[in-house]
């Protein structure tokens, strides 16, 4: 096993560990923290099913953002939908045999990659040109966009200019499952792509990327509007009643 393969193998074990442990920790923390009061932003659904619909619209369509700002919505949605297609396309490196839907999505994944970069560039330009957004941006907000754009561009470069041996890439990752890494091609663009992806995985649980799990735990979106019908008391508030 070459030195390079070994470094990347360890890097990916580490990154995967941080991502999984970090996310599980956060999700458990969110789930365990009580929401003592009913605070859905109304008008809100009065049933669980209604809440599922509301959340689905938020996750799939970014409904509230659509009402709030059309430009951010269009760029944001293009980026996330592109990212979604790219993720589906990438599954082929990680599963064997490759499922039919993943096979079918392959060509769209490439367009997804382009869309993703376009969306990101649009979002980034807002951070320069809209004074309010410029004011609220800290260096990390810029860096995360740079990181994602760099991942997208390095990927597209591999796809269109400096091809790499995707079969070898796949066998490297499948090898990781069995703790038996196979040689990783040493194309610089691939190495860059993978390095950046590992960084993304590591920062995920420590950054604003927590918006992805966070959305599902947001009380103003996920609560049912039924406070008069059903008494809602958090465990720590119950203790006050026993006093």
């Amino acid at each position, binding site marked *: 096993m070459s030195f390079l393969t070994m470094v990347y193998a360890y890097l990916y074990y580490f990154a995967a560990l941080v991502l999984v442990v970090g996310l599980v920790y956060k999700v458990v923390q969110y789930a365990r*923290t009580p929401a003592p009061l009913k605070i859905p*932003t*109304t008008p809100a659904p009065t049933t669980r099913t209604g809440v599922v619909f509301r959340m689905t619209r938020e996750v799939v369509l970014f409904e509230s953002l659509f009402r709030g700002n059309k430009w951010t919505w269009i760029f944001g949605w293009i980026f996330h939908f592109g990212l979604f297609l790219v993720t589906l396309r990438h599954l082929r490196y990680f599963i064997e045999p490759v499922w039919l839907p993943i096979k079918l999505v392959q060509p769209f994944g490439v367009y997804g990659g382009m869309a993703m970069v376009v969306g990101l560039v649009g979002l980034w330009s807002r951070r320069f040109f809209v004074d309010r957004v410029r004011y609220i941006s800290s260096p990390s907000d810029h860096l995360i966009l740079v990181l994602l754009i760099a991942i997208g561009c390095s990927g597209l470069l591999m796809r269109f200019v400096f091809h790499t041996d995707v079969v070898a890439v796949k066998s490297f990752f499948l090898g990781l499952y069995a703790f038996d890494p196979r040689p990783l091609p040493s194309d610089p663009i691939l190495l860059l792509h993978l390095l950046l992806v590992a960084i993304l995985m590591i920062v995920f649980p420590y950054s604003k990327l927590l918006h992805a799990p966070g959305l599902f735990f947001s009380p103003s979106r996920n609560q049912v509007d039924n*406070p008069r019908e059903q008494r809602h008391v958090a465990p720590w508030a119950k203790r006050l009643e026993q006093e």
Partner: protein
Amino acid sequence: MAKATFEVPELSQYIEVPAVTPETMAHSMPFVAKPEFQEPLGFPGELMDDWQQKAIGKMGELLGKYRSLRVYLDACVKCGSCTDKCHYYLGTKDPKNMPVGRQDLMRKVYRRYFTLAGKLFPKLVGAEEFTKEVLDDWYSYYHQCSQCRRCSVFCPYGIDTAEISMAAREIMDSIGVGQKYCNEIIGKVYKIGNNLGLPGPALADTLEGLEEDVYDETGVRVRYPIDEEGAEILLITPSADFFAEPHVDGLIGYGKVFHEAGVSWTLSSYASEAANFGMFIGSYDNMRRVAQRIREAAIQLKVKRIVFGECGHAWRVAYSFLNTLAGPWDFLDPRYPVPQHICEFTYDLIQRGKLTFDKSENDDKVLTYHDSCNVARASRMGDTPGGQFEIPRAIIRATCNHFYDMDEDTIRDRTFCCGGGGGLLTDDLMELRVKGAKPRVEALNNVMQEKAVTHMAAICAICKSQFTKVLPYYGMEMDQIVSLHQLVSNAIVLTGQDTEGDDEDETDEAA
């Protein structure tokens, strides 16, 4: 026009999003509570020596108690969707009044002490130590949020800056930095029973006066009872309803509606306040203590139902929190929701054809309706989502011939705050209140120009007081703001009421 020591913003045709102009409102701070106002609420009297450590400790405690706070501080992606949604930003141009700007005052402290990234790379992620300067900023800008939740409507994660303001105020209270206005008032509720400090006998007097007024005007003996054991309904209403204009006209209206419904009702001198400022300061304990008074009054007066008068945040606490804070209500009549809003009550009677109106009584007015934030975005009326918008409008349509809504972008769940909510209705924040009212007044001005609207109805004591005070700064009349039940009161035809013509004879006979 009222004299102002600051520049009153100019109204424009459309909402204009101002360019970021830092620190325009850094000087705005409400009076700090003296120890005598802090201690009855269980807070230290003045800023403690080790306040920084205590504050961080308190923040940690709240992070473990409120999922909202935890998730909201983590989740913001700085997308900017909320930046132009706050009336205080639109009216003051100060970027710390952008909802995310306001949140960031706490988020930077949170990141510094509670996140790995903030501990390792504070500069990179905008994390900062909790210094005295930061605390001053907190005091200033967390008292420039009316907790109206408009920002949460447009945030992709529903981040509600009100939750963060409440937590910030709770943290500040816990280290001895309280706001005089709110804390003094909560103390009055504990001592006397209501925000205005009106004792029981004064209330009884006022109510007697109302009975006489209504009798003189209509020839019908409408009752305004207080502390009557065994009444069916306990009415909880903001104490402003007892005397201030236009609030009291609303109270007169509730009485007439109950009269026509033929139900017995009563006020309580012990729980003579619908408002619950415990919410504004984010204190679960104080909010619960205030709410418990309603439970005690209901038990003591052996009522079967509870109805709330016109008040925005009170209805939020009542509708969304009362069951949590002071329930369960299993000793009340299970056929009715607990509590009910007076609008739900009136609307139901209208639906069942129990009320007769002479709409022409309101023909001297062309109306519009202001959705109060807490009713619009933090509660409901009736059985279906959005009832809080439709029910009050249906009542206006039933009682008035001329009604026009303001621009769609400024009503219903997108309504603009009056500028005085959230514990900011105090003279020491007048500049903020006037500037914060700008977007709402702008929309009002537009329907005045386009539809010849003369009056705006509201169902919130704070909105009514705020507009009464603020409209004159914009060259409007203070009495352009009216209570919804004032319209009901004007139009309702009481059973046995004198008709216009023989008005005088009958009063003569009675005299």
